[in-house]
């Protein structure tokens, strides 16, 4: 059974159709890159999987681990192992990262019928995962994303991903706004978390990220549909020929 199966997904916002029949199958352990020009539905696809409710799904279905995803609320999807790394992480003044993470972990545990995580275990986990993305210890006591640089925000996304240990991670334009050093750290973090049990969807419009995180498949999302799927070399071809090339294919 595949981990995620998207069938003929149509979604619109304010009556405007953005996704026009997306089909995508993801198996455990795979990394999929979804590429395409801006404004063609990449972020919408990520938001619909995560459950953002300002999108209206008009057709199609998403089956995740045998469950109809549309039956689950945003937080239930997260507790079921879906993680969305935001393109623009949100600042939450007054909520410290450690408080935020502890609440998230405990609520996910509650969903699974587990007791709250013991404090010392949580502290240990924080220390361990901070190292993966070289997150400054001082940042962990600050409010979530408040006053963080672009790079720090993205590192914080990967840090959260490491803490929550998701089954399916969707990283929406994780490379945008990153300098080359931050990109390397973020990519190393993602690679360190790769396993046979979990899968990743990388949403990007540059090939650059894929030098560091090598995907198993590359998909091109164009005008609301996946128009092309290929091996990692497809990304290079796109880089060389540009998205314009797709129009003539």
């Amino acid at each position: 059974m595949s981990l995620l199966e998207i069938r003929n997904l149509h979604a619109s916002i304010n009556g405007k159709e953005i996704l026009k029949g997306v089909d995508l199958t993801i198996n455990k352990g795979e990394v999929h890159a979804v590429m395409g020009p801006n404004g063609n539905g990449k972020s919408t696809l990520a938001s619909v999987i995560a459950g953002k409710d300002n999108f209206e799904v008009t057709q199609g279905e998403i089956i995740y681990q045998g469950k109809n995803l549309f039956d689950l609320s945003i937080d239930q999807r997260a507790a079921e192992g879906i993680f969305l790394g935001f393109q623009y992480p949100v600042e939450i003044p007054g909520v410290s990262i450690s408080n935020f993470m502890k609440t998230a972990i405990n609520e996910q545990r509650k969903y699974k019928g587990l007791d709250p995580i013991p404090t010392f275990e949580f502290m240990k986990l924080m220390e361990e995962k901070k190292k993966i993305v070289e997150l400054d210890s001082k940042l962990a006591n600050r409010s979530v994303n408040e006053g963080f640089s672009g790079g720090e925000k993205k590192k914080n996304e990967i840090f959260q991903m490491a803490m929550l240990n998701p089954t399916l991670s969707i990283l929406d334009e994780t490379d945008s706004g990153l300098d080359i050093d931050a990109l390397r750290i973020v990519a190393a973090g993602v690679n360190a978390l790769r396993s046979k049990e979990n899968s990743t969807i990388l949403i990007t419009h540059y090939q650059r990220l894929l030098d560091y995180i090598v995907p198993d498949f590359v998909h091109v999302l164009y005008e609301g549909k996946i128009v092309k799927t290929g091996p990692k070399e497809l990304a290079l071809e796109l880089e060389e020929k540009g998205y314009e090339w797709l129009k003539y294919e």
Partner: protein
Amino acid sequence: MNGLNMNSFKKATRPKEDDFAGFSCNIPQLITYRINQFNGFFFETKDSSLAINNGTIVCSMEAAKQKYSSILEEKNIKDLSLYEEGLFIYVPKNAQIDLPLQILDVIKAEDSILINSKSVIIIGENSKLKLICCDDTVNDKSSISENTLQIFLEDNSSLEYYKMENINNSSSIFTQTNFILASNASLTTFWLSINGGNIRNSLNVSFEGEHSKAELYGLYLADRDQKVLNEVSVTHNRPNCNSAQLYKGILDDSAEAEFKGHIHVGKNAYLTEATQNNKNILLTDKARVNTQPFLEIYNDDVKCSHGATIGQLDQSAMFYMRSRGITERSAKMLLMYAFCNEVLSKASLQELKDKLQDIIKRRLHGELTSCENCVLVCNNPCESMDVDITKIN
């Protein structure tokens, strides 16, 4: 207006001492000098005679009129005949009080009562005082409490003033507090309106010396059809003084709040720095806020700002939190708590801050009972419950 039919309210009479025997309030880990006021009347206790050997006076206004009339005259307090109930606190020059003073203002009505107290507090030169003032009803009977308070801060003195209003839904509290600051004085106030049918606070700060500063923080939480009004007026008539106001509120159900802020900068008040900020969250369509920030400036060489916001909980933050597995209810709680904590975090008394954070959390959960109406841990038996069931799950 709620319950303002004066005719149905009787003036409070002096309660019997044993009416309140056994009443005690504690803030865990925080030791304070306790001053008890019941229905506006000062009650002598072991603490209130103050085992402070520095000449600090704590007594009723009635006693002060006889014993300390010269001090009152010096402060030009008029209409002394009107001062019946109420407190007199005098901290002499160069005095350090090791512990905070805690005034427990307990309202226990058998019937609808009207409480009227006028108090005077004087903090002498170079002295420091931390004052915690808790207004609590201990049953669900209606009451109206009117408190007038004059506080004088002499040169180089400092005051941290914490006010907690936590009364039942059928009670009203009206406060009028005037702070008069001499030179180099430092004032910080926390005004927390935690619960109450009808709350009106009028706070005035007047700078009569130079290089003084006032930080005024307020937090109000109201639900059902509660009403809260905060009128904050700061008068800068002398140069080189700073003032900052930060008032925040969350309103649920059909609660109403009003903030009227006024900064007056006089002609001579050059180099004044004054800010004013009021932020509100409305949780329902029926809740209402009226905010009126107001600056009146007659000098060019000043730095002043004001701002007011009214909004809902940040939806993008809600989505972000929920995408991490935090339920909608918890995400709301975290956001509301963070909103309140911007005010609470400024409190310098750590033990009190912990307690306040706990109280605010419980208030946001809708857990407040009339017994726990008491801001502090109350050992009184609970006579009636006033839990809003709809807010608990």
